């Protein structure tokens, strides 16, 4: 075997992640795994890693991404639901070849990768036929698939239409679907955007790919599973607060990665992974240093202002949690929770309501959670409604916090540069999967999801060979 091949075998394994139902935590942990590197585009990956249970709506995008991986490539699957049926629909069979790996077993990655690079394992063939995704040739007066001179959907992708820009000029607007596998958006989030250059003119949230069809197992385990379970079972307050601190640190790690500070984020994620009650000082000093970073403030201050007016208007009045508190409103279910009485709990509040306020809000809440965990000792929280989760108030009869946050997106993102839009979406800490749960009541009727349907320019990006 040549020198090049031997060198290549030792390289960090480049992975592109498809986060299925219940796969969020395991996917986050892969960012910390030694010897692997999670990459931003399938074109840079050697392994496609499906984490958790793939859903029907995720399958086609995942297969498209699969075919975007360059050769040699392989597919790995990390089921996270070890008790139930990990793939009830048999959907994984749609991939040409799948190797199953245990969660957190990096050796499996290395073995598959080494076999692949050395040629001992054949590369995956494409999963989909290489054909144009829509019939368009010869359609319309000029044969370009459209009705007039412009317009039309050659290659199945809509050509730019015209729309006014902020200066009143009529400029090209490119309809585009981003997600559900876009690495800069939360897993599963689908945005239908109208882009003028780098500026997002229109936004609509697409169909939730984690939606539950009749006969499907319900989503999860969610990354906030401990909090959801605490609605029904006695749980130590210290455990809840440690989990809250861990959640916020993980979130901050993701937000930093999107700001180009992946290494710094990694430091927070490593701390989160092994967080114990004794780490209070570390959390506090790290949070303080993060919130003093000028360049971070520069990147986030004034971006994505979701103030009280916006939160109370529209139908989004159910917005709770750090997003509401970062808008200056001290609403926190722990305020009225008997389990927190006498712990000296005061809601943390920031006033500016922008992405920077939400960043500082969550880091401050992480530090506060470490304090509460220390003070709570062995105190138990008895089951009861209205538990404050890390994304907002959990209540058996109301929708999960992300549901309301998703409704904010169209108003919040319209008019932003794409980079700011990514910052804003990250600052809301969305979990699209939890939004697929109608409510937490097991007996609730409809299992369909209250997310606005895709707009009619939806076909603007479903090409077989486009972006992730």
């Amino acid at each position: 075997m040549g020198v090049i091949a031997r060198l290549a075998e030792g390289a960090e394994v480049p992975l592109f992640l498809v986060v299925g139902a219940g796969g969020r935590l395991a996917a986050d942990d892969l960012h910390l795994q030694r010897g692997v590197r999670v990459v931003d585009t399938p074109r840079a990956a050697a392994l496609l890693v499906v984490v958790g249970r793939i859903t029907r709506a995720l399958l086609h995008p995942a297969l498209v991404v699969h075919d975007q991986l360059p050769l040699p490539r392989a597919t790995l699957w990390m089921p996270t639901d070890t008790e139930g049926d990990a793939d009830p629909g048999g959907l994984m069979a749609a991939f040409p070849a799948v190797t199953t790996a245990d969660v957190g077993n990096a050796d499996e990655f290395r073995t598959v990768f080494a076999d692949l690079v050395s040629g001992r394992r054949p590369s995956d063939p494409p999963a989909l036929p290489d054909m144009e995704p829509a019939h368009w040739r010869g359609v319309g007066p000029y044969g370009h698939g459209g009705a007039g001179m412009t317009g039309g959907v050659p290659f199945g992708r809509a050509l730019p239409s015209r729309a006014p820009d902020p200066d009143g000029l009529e400029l090209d607007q490119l309809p585009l679907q981003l997600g559900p596998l876009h690495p800069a958006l939360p897993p599963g989030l689908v945005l239908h955007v109208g882009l003028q250059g780098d500026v997002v003119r229109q936004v609509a949230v697409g169909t939730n790919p984690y939606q539950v069809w009749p006969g499907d197992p319900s989503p999860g385990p969610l990354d906030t599973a401990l909090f959801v379970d605490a609605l029904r079972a006695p749980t130590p307050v210290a455990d809840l607060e440690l989990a809250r601190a861990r959640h916020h640190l993980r979130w901050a790690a993701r937000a930093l990665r999107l700001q180009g500070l992946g290494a710094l984020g990694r430091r927070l994620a490593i701390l989160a992974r092994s967080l114990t009650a004794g780490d209070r000082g570390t959390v506090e000093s790290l949070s303080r240093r993060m919130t003093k970073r000028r360049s971070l403030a520069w990147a986030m201050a004034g971006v994505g202002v979701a103030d009280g007016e916006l939160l109370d208007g529209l139908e989004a009045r159910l917005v709770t949690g750090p997003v509401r508190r970062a808008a200056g409103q001290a609403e926190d279910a722990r305020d009225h929770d008997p389990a927190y009485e006498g712990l000296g709990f005061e809601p943390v509040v920031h006033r500016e309501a922008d992405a920077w306020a939400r960043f500082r809000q969550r880091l401050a809440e992480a530090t506060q959670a470490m304090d509460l965990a220390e003070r709570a000792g062995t105190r138990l929280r008895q089951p009861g409604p209205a538990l404050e989760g890390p994304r907002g108030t959990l209540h058996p009869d109301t929708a999960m916090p992300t549901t309301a946050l998703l409704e904010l997106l169209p108003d919040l993102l319209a008019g932003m540069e794409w980079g700011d839009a990514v910052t804003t979406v990250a600052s809301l800490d969305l979990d699209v999967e939890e939004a697929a749960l109608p409510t937490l009541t097991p007996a609730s009727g409809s299992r369909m999801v209250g997310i606005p349907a895709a707009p009619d320019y939806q076909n603007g990006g479903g090409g077989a060979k486009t972006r992730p």
Partner: protein
Amino acid sequence: MNWSSPLPALLLVGAVLGLGAYAVAVLDGAAALVTARQRLPLGDIVIGPLRQAALAARTRRSTTERPDLQAWALAPALLAGMAAGAVATVPFGPDTAVADVDDGIVAFGAVMAVVMVGVYLHGWSANSPLPLVGGYRFIALALSYEMPLALVLIAAALPAESLSVGAIVESQYDLWNVVRQPLGLPLYLVAGTGLAFWGPLNGADGADLAGGTSAEVSGPARLMWALSRRFVLVAVAVMGAAVFLGGWQGPWLPAPLWMALKTLALLAVLVAAGHRLARVRLERFVVVAWVVFIPLALVDVFVSGALAL
């Protein structure tokens, strides 16, 4: 030195760019580990970039629907060729420049303007929206980098009373330009970071665009683009070392070694900044560039001019 045969010139420029790009990769890996407070055996840090390159070389190129193949291949070549042209104007010792032409500074500024073409072509040719947006971004920002860059270089040429890089190096015999013109180097590094779309100014290939202009590139083409980008960064550092840090001049050590050390120091600053500074908001950066950086660069020119009179 006699450059009548092209071979030594090619070797010199190739060695500077190649070793420089390798140094950037090693420094970058080390800086990431330090920032994350992680440890890795030194061997892995040193060999890591070579392993990545080997993997890229063994990965097949992929394609998109109807790409502009010529332009796609041309883009990294433009960037690399431009960096080579820039490095050629810089002396690595007394009379050791490939082409210490009379107006080397102007030549440097001129080739640096080609980055814009290379990056836009790279974004354009994949025939895919996210790379194209990356290309737009660079076009929108390029002038904000190139104006301060050109101005601070002109200011550095004033005390030397020459546009030749060799003469500028020699004019710093008594006092380095980094001290004589304190505004120069910081502005130069900001502009240089932008031209190499590096770290906080990586709008063109940013993570928010899934890799921007390189979102659709794989295998050897991806490796070539990554290398070319680092070549630009190295060219910026080499010129910075010559124009602001006294170039090859220094006691005890041989001249080329001084050049190498100063270049490495600047590369370390650029790489560390990439891990410490958050992605810059593009529109805001343009405002700051025109309201703060360009006026400061003009002040630099006027003050340097007055002092040189």
